[in-house]
């Protein structure tokens, strides 16, 4: 999966959630595919968020030294 930024990932996740909520006939294969996609997006987003948070903490530390 292509690496997107957090905002784009959140947008895609919301689209998947909307898809589930509006589904009348459950297509198991497609549902499963969407679940896998969503899980991957969640994993990526968590990692990116963690990385961003770490970078932010570093910046805060640098600031407090000045």
């Amino acid at each position, binding site marked *: 999966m292509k690496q997107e930024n*957090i905002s784009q990932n*959140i947008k895609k*996740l*919301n689209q*998947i*959630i909307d898809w*589930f*909520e509006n589904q009348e*006939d*459950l297509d*198991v294969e497609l*549902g*499963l595919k*969407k*679940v896998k996609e*969503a*899980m991957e*997006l*969640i994993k990526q*987003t*968590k990692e990116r*968020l963690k990385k*961003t*948070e770490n970078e*932010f903490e570093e910046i*805060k530390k640098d*600031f*407090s030294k000045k």
Partner: protein
Amino acid sequence: MKENKSYLRQTLEKNTFSVSAYLDILNTLLSSCKTKVAGEVSELKKASSGHVYFSLKDKKDGSVLNCVIWSSVYKFCGVELKEGVEIKVFGFADIYKQNGRITFKCSSIELMGEGELKKQYEELKRKLEKEGLFDESRKKEIPLLPCNIGIITSKEGAVINDFLNNLGQYGFKIKLVDSRVEGIEAVKDLLRAIKTLKGEKLDCLVIMRGGGSLESFLAFNNETLIKEVAKLSIPVIVAIGHDKDVPLLALSADKMVSTPTAAANLLNESWHRLEWEIKEKENAIFSFLSSFFESIKLLEYKVKEVLPKIIESRIDNLRMIIANAESVVNHNNPERNLALGYSIARKSGKVIKSIKGIEKEDIIDLEIMDGIINTKVNETRKYKSKH
């Protein structure tokens, strides 16, 4: 001195002189006895050469002294000689060898008596006015930030000290020419001083003296002096004060002030203004810098304190969104439902959501967690209470 006198007396007593030699001795002695003599003008004769011959008469006893004033001296003495006028002459006596007559050679003349002085003052004032010497249009402005200043005044007295004490510390370069400013010889001195300063590179010339009576201002009502000053290419400040009548030199000057302090202040003026403007600009720069640093401090505060809080709150928000998405996805995950024991029934590949359209003996597929069961419908029972 005593020795010299006695030597002279002995020489005169011991020797016999020719008339010419004797007169030479007398003339030598007389020329060293310069003095002032006052009297009334009579027998006035103006020669075509310009030399003026007249007698000075003692009003009390009628004594007469023959006088001459050479044209070169008369031209700039500033006095119009007329019979009956009372004057004071400065000079020395001389014996004319051809006829033995004594003649007083005048090196300068001054009018005496308030009435005559006033009359000549008014006459000259009218003349100069007519010639346009007092016109505002011909007056020169004091240059901005003057630096090289010529001064004509007496080195003695408080005037020069008053002036220098009041002159600001702006790097003025002063060229002072000492001159008598009062009395019978002042005009000559003043004219000589102007001539000296003409060769100097000056921004401005200041002519100064203390106050006094109309008589003591005589030099500054001299036509030659006034015209010489008017010819100068640099602006002239005249600070000579006045009694009732303003000296004519002051009227013709580019700037007239009453005291040396006022003259110094006039020269300081544009420097003061510059100093004030620099101070203003300095304040503006400091105020700009201080507000700039204030805004930097504010920006720093925002970056250090406010931004982290915004970012932290955004991160928390994102975490909640992700957690929510995770929960929704898990809830909808078919694998999870199948693992819980749920199955999906399909007839001809279409998901069965109702018993409507399902008949006995229909073949259906049941999808469970680990495979598909292909089965035949034995019976259908519709729930009474549901749907």
